């Protein structure tokens, strides 16, 4: 599992997010520090409401950072203008938790995929080339383009939708992918497939993956490093083996003990 660490792509210093003010003030993320490297798979693990999605949205630049500095490729990230935002978003993409709300229900699946091709400089490509690319992207996630063409998202199952979201990433080939609980709302069968596809994607295009989950077993299964999050703060972080085999924080221990027995045994027995 252990890989050579590449150079740092995303580094957070005292990142803080406060929602609201006065009585409704919520400190969703409290002075967190992190360092993510090229080609690394990082898991952020925590219970629901611990602030995982908030971190993701700050990193994605969808919401402002209240306090702290985020470094992208060693430089403070600057997304102050529309142009700079667009440049930044060429490097970072996301797969969200709810496949049903990830699609514009009024656009056909073809529109989504063609849009990805156009965005990555394929606007001038011929009809046949685009067709080739879409077919390839779909088969990467075990879907048949011929069966999807001219369909609307709501005609698909949740698992199929989430796989299409991964096909989208396959076409966009970003440097960094944030996957925010991508498997928590799909059926059990699709779950393992989706994880495998994400890892396959990482191997194919050497992408940094930030994998967000509430399931520490999953985190162990996929990741190089793990950040454990409780009430908006990181309570423990480090290589996956260290954190999960030798947990220090009480919260981490509790998370591990919550993993169903069979799963846990299988998990721990694979560690040499």
């Amino acid at each position, binding site marked *: 599992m252990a890989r050579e660490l590449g150079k740092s792509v995303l580094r957070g210093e005292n990142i803080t997010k406060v929602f609201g003010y006065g009585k409704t003030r919520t400190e969703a993320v409290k002075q967190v520090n992190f360092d993510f490297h090229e080609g690394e798979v990082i898991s952020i693990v925590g219970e629901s409401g611990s602030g995982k999605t908030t971190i993701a949205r700050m990193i994605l630049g*969808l919401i402002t950072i209240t306090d702290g500095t985020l470094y992208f490729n060693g430089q403070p990230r600057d997304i102050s203008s529309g142009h700079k935002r667009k440049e930044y978003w060429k490097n970072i993409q*996301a797969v*969200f938790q709810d496949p049903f*709300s*990830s699609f*514009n*229900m*009024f656009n056909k699946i073809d529109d989504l995929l063609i849009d990805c091709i156009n965005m990555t400089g394929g606007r001038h490509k011929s009809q046949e080339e685009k067709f080739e690319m879409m077919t390839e992207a779909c088969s990467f996630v075990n879907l048949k383009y011929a069966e999807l063409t001219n369909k609307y998202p709501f005609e698909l199952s949740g698992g199929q939708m989430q796989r299409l979201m991964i096909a989208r990433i396959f076409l966009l080939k970003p440097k960094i992918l944030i996957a925010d609980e991508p498997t928590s709302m799909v059926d059990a069968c699709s779950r393992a497939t989706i994880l495998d596809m994400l890892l396959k994607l990482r191997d194919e295009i050497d992408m940094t993956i930030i994998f967000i989950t509430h399931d520490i077993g999953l985190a162990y299964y996929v990741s190089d490093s793990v950040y454990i999050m409780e009430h908006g703060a990181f309570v423990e972080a480090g290589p996956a083996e260290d954190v999960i085999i030798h947990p220090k924080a009480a919260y981490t221990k509790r998370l591990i003990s919550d993993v169903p027995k069979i799963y846990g045994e299988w998990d721990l027995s694979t560690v040499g």
Partner: protein
Amino acid sequence: MLHQLKQAFTNPKFLVGFVLFMLMLLISLIYPLLSAFEPLDMVTTGFTAPGTYVSIADVANSDGIGMNVDASAGRLASVLKDEDREKMKDWMVRFGGVAEGDIDLSDTEALLEKWQATYDPAVPQKGLRNADKQAFVRLDKDIKAATNSDGLILAAKGEDGLEEVKTIAGNTYVRTGDVVSKIVMPLGADNFGADVMTKLTSSIAVSLRIGLLAGVIATLIGLTIGLLSGFLGGWVDNFLTFLTNIFTVIPSFVILILIANAISGTARSPMLVGLIIGLTAWPWTARSVRSQVLSLRNRDHVSLSKLSGHSLPRIILQDILPYVASYVVMALILQISSGILAEAQLSMLGLGPDTTTTVTLGIMMNWAQKFSAVLGGAWWAFVPVVISVAIITFSLNLMNTGLDQVFNPQLRD
């Protein structure tokens, strides 16, 4: 969208509303074309009951056909109402010296015989007002005409006085189809003597146009403000919400009255009135669109669209607008309906469109009220108008409820 359209037309409420609305629309477009009059033509001189009017001269000049039917009984019945019989009895007892017990009101023949024997306008009638005396003279004349079996003599003015043209027997009839000059007024005439049906149908067309313009303007403004304010947030949202609140706090009707009052009556064309109504009616559309957009703005597909580098207009048009479109259609329908009502209210206050060139449903109601159509019993001058307003707003609201059920399936009963 196509799917929802199909669903809408299978929804009974929407369908009934749509059919009613289309019916009103068709009538308003077709009847004024077929009508012999312009909406503002003064066909007659005042309130005139509904019916078909034929020219008396035409009838007198036609060649009739003798029928073996005695028409006098029917004529008498229409002349001799119960109250007239009472009056006749009263006169005969007071001035004719007939004993009260000798008169049987139900025996028409005997009554008439007695009346013809005793009535004499020259008899001094103490205690009767002149108007009452004249009324008895007229009644007597009517009775004579009705009982006359010798027919009428038609005369024309010649050099030596009257020259007989022809005699018209009491049992002569003429086919209505042969009477050339006819005026059909299915809903009578109003205080100006204008044909109500023509006026009403063209009013419906004008009122619908005002409502449509007001609705479209209010919806466009409300939609734009709601979209921008909900999606952009920040100071744009604060400013636009402030603006919307100001317009909400000041009753729009007051603004409406002020603006309408500031523009002179003759300058207020129907379209200008529609514009004014539209300019004051947008706040609630803006508010509700804003709240819809607020819940959409953080939807994942919008976030992904941003991450895809799409421009702001494209995100608003492609990722937000389609989701609020169905809602906006419903808002538009309600705005049209309330625009029509707002015009009626304004016109009732005399602040509607210029009354010398156009006529709207509100103007018709205003005139009916000013000329006491209600007190005068001229129901045809206002009942059809009120019913039309009711049908139009009812049909629009019905369509709206139907659409609501289509777009929000949990409301389906």
